[in-house]
């Protein structure tokens, strides 16, 4: 049976060339990058070169890049770090209603510590309403944290427009770019943000390595305290192989990026057109907005997401319902609800996310099989009446 992986927004296959780049840093160059001896110096040079590669691609300074362990950790470090460093100036944070749990739960946790948080709504396409954000600004506002693209819908947020507002109001601006870095061109300085999170495993790099851009001059409190690694902001022995892998993955992801984006977008367009043609009563979410080229969020009316997910999985097709993180809890997605989608339709929503290894044959297989799965499940559903 063909196996088609369409869950690339959850995580991706490590590119073989990335793995190859990582290999020497397990059994050959294994020193601690912070040790002074030659083993450490070799490691230190590799660390420095990885930092240089990533910084160059993102058009930032080497000193503006902190390596961390996960995207969630980067988000925590950014949000908690700013909250801690700037709390004397104010206790108000602005975020959106559609953030990833890493940012959302961190904001909620800060509320328990006495911070006030405004959750800005989105329109029906899943785009943050800038006017609402403007209205939410107070003189106590110290931070705006807003994702660059949403993981469930792929909808890209108006970061540049908002960064004009934060700059005018001298508010620190963090963006969670975990879903955009490596997929579309992302340059934090052009976006105008002060901090930006990203994570290697979302762009065919290894799991367990992520990054945080922190603009020079921005103060940052710590989440984890210890030794001197990563400018003392993120101590703990550096995962050198991981960092080298992230640099290689970013290099590969950003080469011929426009071309690859165009191909991916064409593939998705083919997919969506066929799905709509072949399956009645479905709806593509966020279709009117700017989206990541490979993400497609589809609501299948009268069905529940997990059963679709497993039905497709039975045919070898891997997708997700809501985000992977929430597959343990059984709530309808807060992202879809925030867009005004009915609860029952939110329950029946599936995310198809393409990656660089997907082919046209993959998609042809899916548009062949998915309609059968949906039809079969609908015969079981009491909500479905032909």
């Amino acid at each position, binding site marked *: 049976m063909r196996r088609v992986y369409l869950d690339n927004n959850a995580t991706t296959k490590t590119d073989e060339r990335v793995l190859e780049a990582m290999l020497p840093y397990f059994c050959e160059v294994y020193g601690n990058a912070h040790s002074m001896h030659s083993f450490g110096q070799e490691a230190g040079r590799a660390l420095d070169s990885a930092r240089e590669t990533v910084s160059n691609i993102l058009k930032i300074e080497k000193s503006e890049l902190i390596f961390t362990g996960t995207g969630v950790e980067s988000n925590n470090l950014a949000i908690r770090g700013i909250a801690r460093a700037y709390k004397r100036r104010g206790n108000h944070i602005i975020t959106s209603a559609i953030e990833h749990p890493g940012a959302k739960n961190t904001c909620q946790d800060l509320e328990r510590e006495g911070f006030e948080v405004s959750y800005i709504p989105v329109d029906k396409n899943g785009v943050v309403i800038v006017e609402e954000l403007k209205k939410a600004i107070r003189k106590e506002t110290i931070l705006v944290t807003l994702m660059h693209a949403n993981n469930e819908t792929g909808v890209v947020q108006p970061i540049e427009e908002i960064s004009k507002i934060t700059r005018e109001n001298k508010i620190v601006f963090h963006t969670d770019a975990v879903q955009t870095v490596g997929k579309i061109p992302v340059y934090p300085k052009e976006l105008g943000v002060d901090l930006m999170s990203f994570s290697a495993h979302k762009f065919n790099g290894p799991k367990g390595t992520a990054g945080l851009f922190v603009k020079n001059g921005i103060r940052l409190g710590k989440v984890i305290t210890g030794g001197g690694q990563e400018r003392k902001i993120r101590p703990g022995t550096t995962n050198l192989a991981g960092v080298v892998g992230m640099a290689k993955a970013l290099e590969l992801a950003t080469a011929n990026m426009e071309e690859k984006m165009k191909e991916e977008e064409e593939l998705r367009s083919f997919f969506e057109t066929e799905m709509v043609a072949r399956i009645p009563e479905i709806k593509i979410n966020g279709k009117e907005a700017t989206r990541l080229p490979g993400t497609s969020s589809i609501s299948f009316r009268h069905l529940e997401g997990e059963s679709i997910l497993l*039905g497709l999985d039975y045919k070898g097709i891997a997708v997700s319902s809501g985000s992977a993180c929430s597959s*343990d809890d059984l709530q309808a997605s807060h992202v879809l609800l925030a867009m005004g989608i009915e*609860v029952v339709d939110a329950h029946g929503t599936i995310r198809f996310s393409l990656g660089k290894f997907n082919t046209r044959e993959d998609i042809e297989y899916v548009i062949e099989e998915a309609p059968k799965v949906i039809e079969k499940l609908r015969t079981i559903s009491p909500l479905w009446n032909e």
Partner: protein
Amino acid sequence: MEYTKKVMDHFMNPRNVGVIENPDGYGKIGSPSCGDMMEIFLKIEDGIIKDVKFRTFGCASAIASSSVTTEMILNKTVEEALQVTNKAVVEALDGLPAAKVHCSVLAEEAIKAAIEDYLSKK
């Protein structure tokens, strides 16, 4: 979280799917906005369940629970069917993940509701 083979079998090949016109007993539990809803239709003769059909909107474990439950009560007396607990449903499925046990409760409740409907109409 992983389902047993039994769950996957009942999910992929659910038994007794459908509706019975003019059922002797009908039960409906849950609501679409909670993400799960179940309908049970019963045909009862001389206190024995001669036919049963179901339709379920819900996760794989809700579908499998309904399916296995219909098997468990088919050709049983009404009294026997009332004894079916969600625990028995879970066992019949070789287990359910902790977060999914409530789906089997739904099946138990749907059966009970259908039988109550039958009893109340008698």
